[in-house]
């Protein structure tokens, strides 16, 4: 197996509260890893730790990505290197045009890779197909970034960013929350389109619903700041029935 990201003994605090307590997790390149666990277990904190969120203070352990420690890297560097987080609660930014934002982000990435930047027309051409697949109206990109978007629209917009930026490690934090069945299907289609055997997914959820659409290779159970079990997809129906309390630690 080839490991793309290795999280070793990570300890992290938010404010004075210790949330991740020596967490270990290894992501195998090209696979879909699901992280499941009760509310408050530390799932979002783990995702924030990986992308370098200012809320989180890492007090121990290390995260390596493609063999290099990323723990001291700026968030924008981690993004440029191919790490992407679809936020549980994407923020609204009034006054920033969505298309302008998307193009700025894409061009930052292209510049980082030594490619030519796209102009507005080239960019719009690229967008067209993505928008159709996600069932997004074209006016969604002429509006302010996430401003007044419904929950489902915000999540679609996250997936749109993923499609454009083509990241290598994709963390989806509760991508399924607040989605109706149609939206869930479209969002899953977007995600599945990115599966190419090389990209790696970390799908964070506390429902198993999304896992019907995006088939996971591994299930990790996160409880009280630690990964207490790793298994194959056969664990999902067990968790459905028994919840997290009956899980025996590995």
């Amino acid at each position, binding site marked *: 197996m080839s490991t793309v990201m290795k999280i070793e003994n990570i300890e992290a605090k938010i404010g004075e509260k210790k949330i991740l307590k020596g967490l270990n997790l290894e992501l195998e390149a090209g696979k879909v890893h699901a992280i499941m666990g009760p509310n408050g277990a530390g799932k979002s904190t783990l995702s924030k730790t990986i*992308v370098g969120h*200012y809320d989180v203070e890492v007090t121990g352990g290390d995260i390596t990505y493609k063999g290099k420690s990323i723990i001291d890297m*700026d968030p*924008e560097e981690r*993004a440029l290197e191919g790490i992407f987080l679809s*936020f549980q609660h994407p*923020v609204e930014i009034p006054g*920033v045009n969505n298309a302008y934002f998307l193009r700025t982000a894409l061009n*930052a990435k292209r510049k980082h890779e030594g490619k030519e930047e796209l102009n507005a027309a080239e960019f719009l051409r690229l967008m067209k197909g993505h928008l159709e697949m996600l069932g997004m109206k074209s006016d969604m990109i002429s509006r302010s970034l996430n401003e007044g978007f419904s929950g489902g629209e915000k999540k679609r917009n996250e997936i749109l960013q993923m499609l454009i930026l083509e990241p290598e490690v994709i963390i989806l934090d509760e991508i399924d929350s607040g989605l109706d069945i149609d939206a869930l299907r479209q969002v899953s289609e977007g995600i599945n389109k990115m599966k190419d055997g090389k990209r790696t997914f970390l799908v964070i959820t506390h429902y198993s619903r999304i896992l019907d659409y995006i088939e996971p290779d591994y299930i990790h159970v996160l409880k009280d700041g630690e990964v207490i079990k790793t298994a194959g997809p056969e664990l999902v129906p067990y968790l459905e029935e028994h919840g997290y309390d009956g899980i025996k630690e590995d």
Partner: protein
Amino acid sequence: MNLITLKNKSTQEVASALNVEGRELLLEKFASLGLPHKMTEEYHYFDVEKLLNVDYKTLDYLPKSIEESDKIEIVDGVVTKAPKGMRVHFEPAGILDMDHFDGLYYLGHLLSPRTIKIEIDGDSEVEILHRFTQSNTLINYRIVLANQANRHTLVYENFEADNIENSLVLYGYDMHIAKDSTLRLVRLQTMKDKQYSMVASHKINVAKNANAILKNFDFGGDQALQVLKVELAERAHVDAGHLLYLNDDSKRGTASQIIHRGEHSTSKQIAKNILDAQARGIFDALIRVEHSAKFTKAEQNAKSILLHKKAYMASKPQLEIYIDELEASHGSTTGQLDEKQLFYLQSRGISYIEARKILVIAFANTLIEEVKDTRHQDRIKAAFEAVFYASNKG
């Protein structure tokens, strides 16, 4: 000349110091208001005495022959260029406001026995460029600007300075916006530290059914105060936007009074202030609704963001109301850039500096986008970015 010597002087003393003959009413008004100082309400946040208390060289403002051009150009207080057919004269001011609150309004007129009179005919657009070329100099001039009834006028006002230092500019408008007309003024002033400071003292009369649309973009450094008095007749409307974006240890802003005199008059005054480094911004704005101004609407709002812990904003929107029948609202907020928004942009690979720029522009954009002409809008955006990069070096 050192203007501080006029402090606490009698009318005769002022008259002889400034070599003024006649003009008794102006002299009396000036003597009774006196030179502004720290305790003068409108100058409370602005150290005007330090600017006045300097030995400046003076100029003689002899009229020059006016060259034909696509804009009006005023160099050190003298008109040098004007568009063909534009009526620009150099003559004694007509009717002045004998009830202005600002001593420098009267001093400006006493220092400038003749004013630059610009009469704008028909529906038209004009650009006024102010240029300053003299160091250590007091540059003073007054402009009288009038349009015609029923017409739409668009005025772009811009400022340039040569490589000068330590001058003081006192200027201002007496503006007469004719009935049933609209006058739109877009004023962009980027200043660099230590070139020139400014106090601009304006009076704007908005006649019955007329609209005054005043969009101010004050960017950069140094010290400048715009003192503004607007009077609204029946069904007159003013829409004033103030975008302030300061860096270094700049001190700039607006001290204004909007006075509703006529019934059904409306006012809207929106200020957005961005303060970087150790800059200090001023928005000291009063809207007064007189007894005579029933059924008026007044809206006033100021929002500020501080980009640095040493930056400071003096934001004082005030409503003074003497009637019951009206709709009025006002508010003022001060904050910082939103960390969550910054992080969101960074998490998509956008650098910290670009993310800041995007958010600062987003804050300012509602005012910038009110300038519909793309050439002028682009100029304002470019000036804005230049100020941003001056204090956010990558």
